[in-house]
């Protein structure tokens, strides 16, 4: 689960990591008073207006603007940014609508560093990544100048050691004295590690971490992603969830215990298991079709869940055919078949339906489909099914 920058900074502030003063705004009218307050409190006449969307690359896309002309300019910028379709490298061409802003005090920046904590799958440990190239697209830096990316791993039995933070600080040129930025950096990094572990993050990225002209180390951005698997021990997470950042159909799917991702094709897929669901999309593409979704009904879906899955596929509007691909393990083919029949009858299905069943109780499942009186093409294998649905959708289009 991703959260917004302003929410991430609230967490950092709670842990004692220095962040600039700022407030979130949901309407343009709120921006002037916030800017006035910030200017009065900090004595700095500059504020920054930042679009709050979950995707990165906001600055380059025009979602982050500096207002040097006080509250009036901040309001003018807010009018422009709020409600815009912000297109960045990570949003895709359609962009993401800006519904929230973060108004923040300006800082006199001397240096911009990059800092991130994440779970390194290969090393099976938390990795801390630092670079002198802050404020840049870090993937580009890693590609062009890999020597500028410094990585260290944390032994979970020991925790993050003081020397590691010191070492990274020296490597980033923050020395020599622990009384200056180096000492602050060490404290910030140790705090971030504690925050990462306690809050069950899977990513905590500060880009940039800045050193101000007066020598303060401050987190100027905060990108926080939580590990969804740890949701059960974080009752505070749902309050931070922004439903506008997710596809409403995907949210509904989650509620029904299904895993769903919208795609832009026209063949709806209903599959059990994530791997098989991905492979089903692949084979549809191979035979010239385009999948409309990824849908994993899970290991032991009920008839009701199968029905919900059908409803969701049909909701997307542009679906011209449905391919059900089930290899029953725990999932019984007769249960799936029952769900399909119930859904097809209740939702008066008007698009071609191809069903491939295999595995546990397959005979019983096929019998239920055969006797339903519904127009269902049955497939003998995954490849057969993919070919049949691609042909059916093609002929319907022609």
């Amino acid at each position: 689960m991703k959260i917004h920058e302003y929410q991430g900074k609230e967490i950092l502030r709670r842990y004692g990591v220095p962040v600039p003063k700022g407030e979130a705004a949901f309407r343009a009218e709120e921006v002037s008073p916030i800017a006035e307050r910030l200017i009065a409190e900090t004595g700095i006449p500059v504020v920054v207006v930042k679009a709050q969307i979950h995707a990165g690359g906001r600055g380059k896309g025009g979602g982050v603007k500096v207002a040097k002309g006080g509250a009036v300019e901040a309001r003018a910028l807010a009018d422009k940014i709020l409600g815009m379709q912000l297109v960045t490298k990570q949003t895709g061409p359609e962009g993401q609508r800006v519904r929230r802003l973060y108004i923040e005090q300006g800082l006199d920046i001397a240096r911009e560093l990059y800092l991130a904590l994440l779970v390194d799958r290969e090393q099976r440990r938390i990795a801390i990544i630092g670079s002198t190239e802050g404020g840049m697209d870090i993937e580009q830096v890693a590609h062009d100048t890999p020597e500028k990316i410094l990585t260290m791993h944390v032994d979970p039995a020991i925790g993050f050691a003081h020397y590691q933070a010191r070492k990274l600080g020296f490597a980033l040129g923050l020395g020599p004295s622990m009384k200056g930025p180096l000492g602050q950096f060490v404290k910030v990094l140790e705090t971030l590690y504690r925050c990462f572990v306690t809050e069950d993050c899977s990513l905590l990225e500060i880009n940039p971490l800045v050193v101000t002209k007066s020598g303060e180390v401050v987190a100027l951005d905060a990108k926080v992603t939580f590990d969804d698997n740890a949701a059960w021990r974080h009752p505070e997470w749902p309050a931070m969830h922004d439903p506008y950042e997710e596809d409403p159909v995907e949210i509904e799917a989650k509620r029904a215990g299904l895993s769903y991702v919208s795609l832009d094709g026209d063949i709806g897929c209903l599959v059990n298991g994530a791997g098989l669901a991905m492979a089903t999309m692949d084979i549809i593409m191979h035979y010239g079709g385009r999948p409309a979704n990824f849908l994993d009904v899970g290991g032991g879906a009920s008839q009701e869940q199968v029905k919900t899955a059908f409803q969701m596929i049909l909701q997307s509007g542009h679906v011209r055919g449905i391919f059900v691909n089930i290899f029953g393990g725990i999932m019984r083919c007769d249960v799936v078949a029952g769900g399909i029949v119930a859904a097809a009858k209740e939702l008066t299905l008007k698009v071609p339906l191809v069903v491939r069943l295999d595995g546990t109780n397959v005979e019983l499942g096929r019998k239920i489909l055969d006797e339903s009186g519904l127009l269902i093409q049955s497939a003998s294998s995954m490849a057969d099914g993919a070919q049949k649905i691609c042909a059916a959708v093609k002929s319907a289009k022609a």
Partner: protein
Amino acid sequence: MSILVGSDTRVVFQGITGESGSLHARACLAYGTKIVAGVTPGKGGQKFEEKVPIFDTVEQAVKNEGAEVSCIFVPPAGAADAILEAADAGCRFVVCITDGVPVLDMVRVRRFLEGRKTKLLGPNCPGIITPDECKIGIMPGHIHKKGHVGVLSKSGTLTYEAVGQLSALGIGQSTCIGIGGDPVGGLDFIDCLQMFNDDPETHGVVLIGEIGGSAEQRAAEWIKAHMKKPVIAFIAGRAAPPGKRMGHAGAIIAGGKGTAAEKMAAFEAAGVRVAATPGEMGVTMKAAMSA
């Protein structure tokens, strides 16, 4: 013998009285797996299905019944702890089926296992089966056929798909392993390939990977350097758009890395035949075996 588990393997089920634990323990018993004990804290002294003794701790199951392999069906909040308990009790192999274990719990578990003899499979995996001998997990037993091809996969149902295709072609399996799709888990592709390579009963391997990470690329390098047997591969997720999580926490393409194309190219460079579609895993293996 196959790898890791066979007809003599003595298994303990942790969480045997839970809903899915009991369901799958029954199916494994019916398949012929030697489940010698169950563990549910607080239910020690009772019996499962009137024959399998239940203990409060894994240590008691090991001491009293000679359990050596554990299968875990404990809910996510207690799964990591259950793995620690099994390893501490001396189980040589732990299979954790549980889906939804926090990644930082697994980071700590892996650290705990360092320097111990215990091997871990999973979490979030379908388990392991040596056909006609021992089934530890949630896979449908009847689709398997005893033979000489090892199957190795991150995905559950896609493994069944591969097994179904192999069995239909008359190609039996030595051992089938689902390593799970979580970012941090136990045995990886290379660990399993190594065991298949050393197993005289295994004559070839089907490897099923998916988008995200670089485990497949590293497996390809290892195969090129060490593998003495034919390997065929399939990579799921060619059609997946970047940045979206596809069911498995691991299946996400980040920054253009971990794409299906990249992984397929790595396998081809290592002399591994890559099935063009998931419908051709069986025939690709057949061709590789007779080549």
